[in-house]
């Protein structure tokens, strides 16, 4: 019988690094990604014919050259819909089938958090991450007057990238006060400081206003434009733009990704812990080796650890302190008709109607939070914070209940086309990078 593949979901740094280690150890590896090319979030590649914006290209080129020399099978434009209790995974898209992998490695990266506020679902409001994807794949900045708002280092990075592409944002609105912590900042790794200094130089030269300690409280549409209300706690003012990009930090992306009693499942990179690119590469390599070892000895693989990962953890903790803010407390004073769950159009009012301490089941069945196609990926955190007395405090990993498949909605037509795994060889030979 055909030796079953190890399935890796996500062709970013962690996934490709894990794939190379496993392929080198002699395992057949299938790596899938819903995108058209490898790269993941940080090394997202431009669309054919576009210029793109390279970040640390040498690191990526080395890794991909190493991977391409090994017998790894790649399936792009292929979605992983989940793994069931029997160990069957469903793939839809370009490679459309069920398979029973020997093991599963989830490297699905991070997702963006966006705190609900009035107007956040208006057309023209998007996330900073989505704007950055557009910038990386098209090689062009979003057009018109753009406001970047929320909190976190991505706002500065995106602002600088837009500036270099000749459309600086009209303002960067940052809820934290990152420049008020010079001593903590100095203890960040040199790489972080160098990157941040580069971005700041670009923004200062272009005189992009950076409003710190300021929240974007609400957005309203006026004709073709978006009017945002900004507040720094004492005063409030309005700013007019064509587009608003929101970003309230990043979180691990593991919604709908279940564990499986029938096979080893390992989460690596930002999908396990959002620590950024260096950590993802390291965890991918170490995790790939750990999985190879576990398969050889019939044991359960353990999550990787190393001094580098510890350093990145410490750096992320410092960044969190530098960017600390009390913006999430605003959830308690939002207008009651603010939409919390976009999928089902559920508001703060609908949440409050469930009483003081609703249980997970009530949130889902009666409140319908987490019942839409995103399975609570976007609203879970805000539901948990809004019903908590301490909205700033950490929230449970799965506030709307244990994860379950589908990790992404399954088109019925794709399901029909997905032949069950018969134990035969895969449709394409290994080593083909299409």
């Amino acid at each position, binding site marked *: 019988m055909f030796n079953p593949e190890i399935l890796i979901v996500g062709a970013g740094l962690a996934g490709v690094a894990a794939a190379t280690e496993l392929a080198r150890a002699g395992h057949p590896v299938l790596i899938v990604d819903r995108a058209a090319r490898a790269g993941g979030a940080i090394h997202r590649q431009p669309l054919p014919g576009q210029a793109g914006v390279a970040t640390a290209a040498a690191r990526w080129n080395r890794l991909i050259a190493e991977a391409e020399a090994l017998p790894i099978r790649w399936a792009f434009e292929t979605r992983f819909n989940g793994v069931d209790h029997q160990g*069957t995974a469903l793939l839809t898209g370009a490679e459309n089938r069920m398979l029973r992998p020997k093991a599963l490695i989830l490297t699905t990266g991070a997702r963006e958090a966006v705190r609900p506020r009035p107007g956040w679902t208006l057309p023209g409001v998007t996330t900073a991450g989505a704007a950055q994807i557009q910038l990386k794949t098209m090689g062009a900045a979003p057009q018109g007057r753009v406001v970047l708002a929320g909190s976190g280092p991505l706002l500065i990075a995106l602002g600088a990238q837009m500036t270099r592409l000749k459309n600086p944002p009209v303002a960067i609105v940052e809820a934290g006060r990152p420049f008020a912590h010079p001593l903590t900042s100095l203890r960040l790794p040199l790489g972080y400081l160098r990157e941040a200094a580069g971005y700041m130089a670009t923004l200062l030269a272009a005189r992009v206003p950076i409003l710190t300690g300021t929240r974007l409280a609400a957005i309203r549409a006026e004709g073709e434009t978006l009017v945002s209300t900004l507040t720094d706690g004492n005063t409030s003012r309005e700013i007019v733009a064509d587009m608003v990009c929101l970003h309230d930090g990043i979180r691990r992306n593991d919604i709908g990704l279940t564990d499986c009693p029938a096979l080893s499942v390992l989460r690596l990179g930002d999908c396990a812990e959002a620590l950024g690119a260096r950590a993802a590469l390291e965890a991918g390599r170490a995790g790939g080796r750990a999985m190879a070892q576990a398969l050889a000895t019939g044991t359960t693989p353990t999550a990787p650890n190393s001094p580098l990962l510890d350093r990145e953890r410490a750096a992320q903790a410092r960044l969190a302190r530098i960017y600390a803010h009390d913006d999430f407390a605003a959830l308690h004073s939002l207008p009651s008709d603010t939409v919390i769950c976009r999928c089902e159009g559920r508001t703060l009012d609908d949440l409050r109607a469930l009483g003081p301490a609703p249980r997970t089941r009530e949130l889902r069945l009666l409140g319908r939070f987490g019942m839409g196609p995103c399975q609570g990926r976007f609203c879970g955190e805000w539901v948990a914070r809004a019903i908590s007395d301490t909205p700033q405090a950490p929230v449970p990993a799965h506030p709307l209940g244990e994860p*379950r498949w589908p990790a992404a909605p399954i088109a019925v037509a794709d399901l029909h086309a997905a032949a069950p795994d018969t134990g035969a060889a895969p449709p394409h030979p290994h080593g083909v990078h299409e």
Partner: protein
Amino acid sequence: MNAEGIYDAVVIGAGVVGASSAWHLAQAGLSVALVDAEGPAAAASGASDGAVSVASKKPGPLARLATASLLYTRDLAQGGPLSSAYHPRPSYIFGTGSAESAAIDALIAKLAQLGTAVRLRADGDATLLPGVGTGIDRVVALEGEGHMPGYAAVQGYLREPRIDRFWPAPVTALEESGSEVRIVLGTQTLRAKRVIAALGTATPRLFPTLPVLPRAGQLFVTDRGLAGQLPGALTSAAYLLAKTTAPSVLPKPPVVIDPLATGQYLIGSTREDHGDPTRVDFETLRELMLRAVEAWPALRARRVIRAFAGVRAAVSDGLPIVGSAPGYERVLLATGFEGDGICLSAVIGREAARMTAGLSPDAALAADFAALSPARFAQVQEGAA
């Protein structure tokens, strides 16, 4: 509860049967507490379809009780506790081949015997329901049935403020002494004159002699769509065959397609001999969706966004258990409703409350309730000994 801290009745289990019982007790002016190990609709009632259907019931006591419950559910939906839970809608049964056609003939005869609660509106070929799959020979349209999500019914009954609630509070023991029952919830003990135990699949934990077995069912929910909305439930006649003959377990389940009030579809469901709600698999999903698309091709344009399993409480002889618990004087059991508990809950709750208040069941239903008595298992055991 009275001055000594004794409730007239404590209901254990806040599923649809327990919630209905508690509501009916409160309406009768009794002091009542409702206890659940987890919370409202935590088990089968929160993980099921909600067909309030007479067509699918085995002829005999179940079909008659379902008819009475359907009529009563409609009453409770007129400004009563089920007003936002119950939605009337037509139901369609489809069949292909002579065995399924014979099952449809038997269904029509059964409905005629049961009176006018559910009427045959039309009987014809696939043209009767525009949009139905071309491989289908026969379609009948019924009117009078409806849909009621279990959790919505529980929520409706729990709007009654005169029900005291205790959860999460697993009952670990029931102690009957003299004229009172002590209900042990870990550190706390409640006292009641009477108890109704509506425990679903957990029944054997407190009543180990009863043959209540788990029977899991997988269910799938699609997204919304603009086109191809079905006006009512679409059920395979193979499902009638399966449900009205032996309590068989089907490896390849006949399909039921239920349009939800949200514009989504619920597609179910399997009958599997285990009690693990995490066992939901892609191959079963695919099998069911293949059959669902054959019956209703517009489903091809939808996406499946949710998959889950519920666990039914099945009884070895295929009939529910309602009546005095073996070994107790003051404890009434209401359990074992397998795939029919939502449909039956209105009448079961009403009659369980009557029995608890010391009244005999509604005369028209007395014989049917007698058939549900747990005494039937005691006799079998004595006979075997």
